[in-house]
């Protein structure tokens, strides 16, 4: 009995270590939380273009085409890091529709940002009050979603995407 009591801390230690190890090696990453939206329909949204407020995009417009949705802002420095990759995606996968949502940004800043660093998006939607991000469950910028032809979210990534993520996780889905 006494031995068992003394063994308890070792057993607890083992359990904690096994779960922590499982967490670490499973590739789970706080940057990539399991999304409740994964494999679900894309939330309905409607947004006007950054360049022409009369031009509207909504959920129906992206039906029947593979769409990569990226939430970005001019004030977000990690967005700057991933930005050039979208040009690469555009070049390699011209069939993929690139939709950028400009998140809580003054439109002048957003325009200047896309002027300086270039605009890789097919459409830049305005999400000035962050409501669309809320629908998507965005944790922080940047966040990227891949939507298939049926309008289901098949991939989500938090933080700047990298070449590895593009090659190993996004491209196999294209």
């Amino acid at each position, binding site marked *: 009995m006494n*031995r068992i009591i*003394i*063994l308890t*801390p*070792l057993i607890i*230690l083992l359990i*904690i*270590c096994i*779960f*922590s*190890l*499982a*967490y*670490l*090696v*499973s*590739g*789970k*990453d*706080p*940057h990539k*939380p*399991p999304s409740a939206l994964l494999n679900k329909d894309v939330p309905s949204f409607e947004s006007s273009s950054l360049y022409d407020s009369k031009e509207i995009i909504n959920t129906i417009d992206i039906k029947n085409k593979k769409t990569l949705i990226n939430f970005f802002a001019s*004030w*977000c*420095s990690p967005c700057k890091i991933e930005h050039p990759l979208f040009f690469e995606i555009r070049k390699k996968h011209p069939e993929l529709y690139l939709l950028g949502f400009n998140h809580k940004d003054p439109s002048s800043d957003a325009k200047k940002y896309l002027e300086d660093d270039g605009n890789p998006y097919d459409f830049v939607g305005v999400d000035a009050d962050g409501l669309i991000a809320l629908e998507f469950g965005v944790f922080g910028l940047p966040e990227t979603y891949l939507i298939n032809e049926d309008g289901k979210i098949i991939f989500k990534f938090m933080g700047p995407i990298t070449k590895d993520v593009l090659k190993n996780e996004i491209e196999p889905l294209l």
Partner: protein
Amino acid sequence: MSSLIGFLSLVFAIGINLYLLISKYLFKIKNKRFKLFVRLSSLLTLLSFFSLMCAYVVSDFSNYNVFQNSHSNKPMIYKISGTWGNHEGSMLLWLSILSIYSFFFSFIKNIEDNFQRLTLNIQAFLHILFGLFIVLTSNPFLVNSLFVEEGLGLNPILQDPGLAVHPPILYAGYVGYSIVFSIAIAGLFHNKDDEWLYIAKRWSLISWTFLTGGIALGSYWAYYELGWGGWWFWDPVENISLMPWIAGLALVHSLMMVRGEQALKRWIIFLSILCFSLSVFGTFLVRSGILTSVHSFAADASRGLFILLIFFIVTGFGFLVFLLKEPKKSNPLNLLFINKVSALVINNILMVIATLTILLGTIYPIIIEVLNNKRISVGGPYFNSTVIPIMIPGFLLMSIAPVLSWQTNKIKDSKKYALGFIILSVAVLIQSYFLDFNTWGFVGLLLGFWIITASTIAILSSYKIKFSIKFFQIINPHIAHIGVGLAIIGITCSSVFKNELDFNLNEGDEFNVIGKKVLFEKIETTNEINFQALRGKFLFDIEKNRLNQIEAGKNYYPVSKMITSEAGILHQWNRDIYFILGDQKDNEWFVKVLINPFVSFIWLGVLIMVVSGLIGVTRR
């Protein structure tokens, strides 16, 4: 250059520790030389740390770590604190503090040489583990491959004087448990006498005092910097610091009470291992990036794995030794229905249960995510409804524990205490009846006042009052408990009786806060060295002549493009009036005013605990 010196001295220090570890078996060096090497390794580690600091001070952006975390525009104090405001630097600080503890421990006289050497060997072992961790996964001396003239800046939220000193003090607490751990393990191996218990007492009290100060500073920072009006959020990182704190509290008390009892000795060793394990586990959770908060700098799986390995080795080693070796047989435990020893045992059990409850709440989300692939968060409601009720009987017991007897069930002057408790209960009941009765409010206030009253009765009836240092050393435990009582009153009032008011205001508007007229004077923007400040100026209590100006607003940091909220707080002895400036809409500013009663009691209580901890360290 300084980076090179820093890296080399770090590696040399690890080498020396390796030498120290194997010296016993291979080189047979003399004790005196052994200690000299310990000190040399400590100095080299400190040299490494100060080299990094030097790179920060001169804004040497050829160091990748400095480039990532500093900016030449930053005020000097934040350049210095930037040294530990990032993962790599903070781990180097961790190692430096470990070295400082070994350094001082090597100077202790009047202890058995073999025991001292064994303790220092275990410290050397820890040094190697953490040193390798830094060199292999978190090297702060990497060279920047780009030529740059400017750095990327330090997270603005960390640019705060409170936060500049919070990490070193907190680490002094965490890492202090390393020496307690080493002493306990050495005590198990070197099973000759109980001398190690008295040595461990002082070091565990030092660690606990630092930990208390560090947690309080972090909490105080959260209170005025985060702008949420609260000072404790049951954030995982706070829980991580609370676990070794509670376990450390149990350890300090057990060490005070132990008189060679076999069961207590085992228990003390268990707690010593537990405290340091929890510190390392906390480091793992934060540094692996499993928990995301203001404290997790970067997520990197290799770092996580490495620290998990260290945690496994250290804790596994500790508990394995604990399992295999038994302390020397000696006195049995003198347990009675209610005497000092039984009170201690009950309190210890409660504290360990509280620690485990917090541990469960903290790792539960990890377990669930591994099993279910769902992310959940365990927050305030769980901890409030589990940890607090577990702690309450402990607090109740604490008020009378110092006056309990060792040998009998009798409490000296028990009538006085009973009378005091009854009068107090009635008084608090009447007071809470007039102030919207609230169960938690009633329990908390009664508990706080009871602890203070009982401790005061104990001081007055047991000792002759003198104003000498010795007298304060004798009544020190009671003073510490009065500090706890004050903190409980502060915690209860500020959480149960707080009030929140919302306003939409134009400049020049007057409004009422707790019956006092307040004028929203104006909005001002100014340019500071490294940020732009927006401030709303308020005049409190304009009808009386005692004008109090309060400034609340936001800072915008252009380098990192971040906005931080700066709360304006008017401190009064019985309440804090806490102003938060929100956004502007249609020319009106949203202003939130929180009235937090008796917050100052929390800080005063903690201060008393820290001071009495320091007095305890000086007592033989």
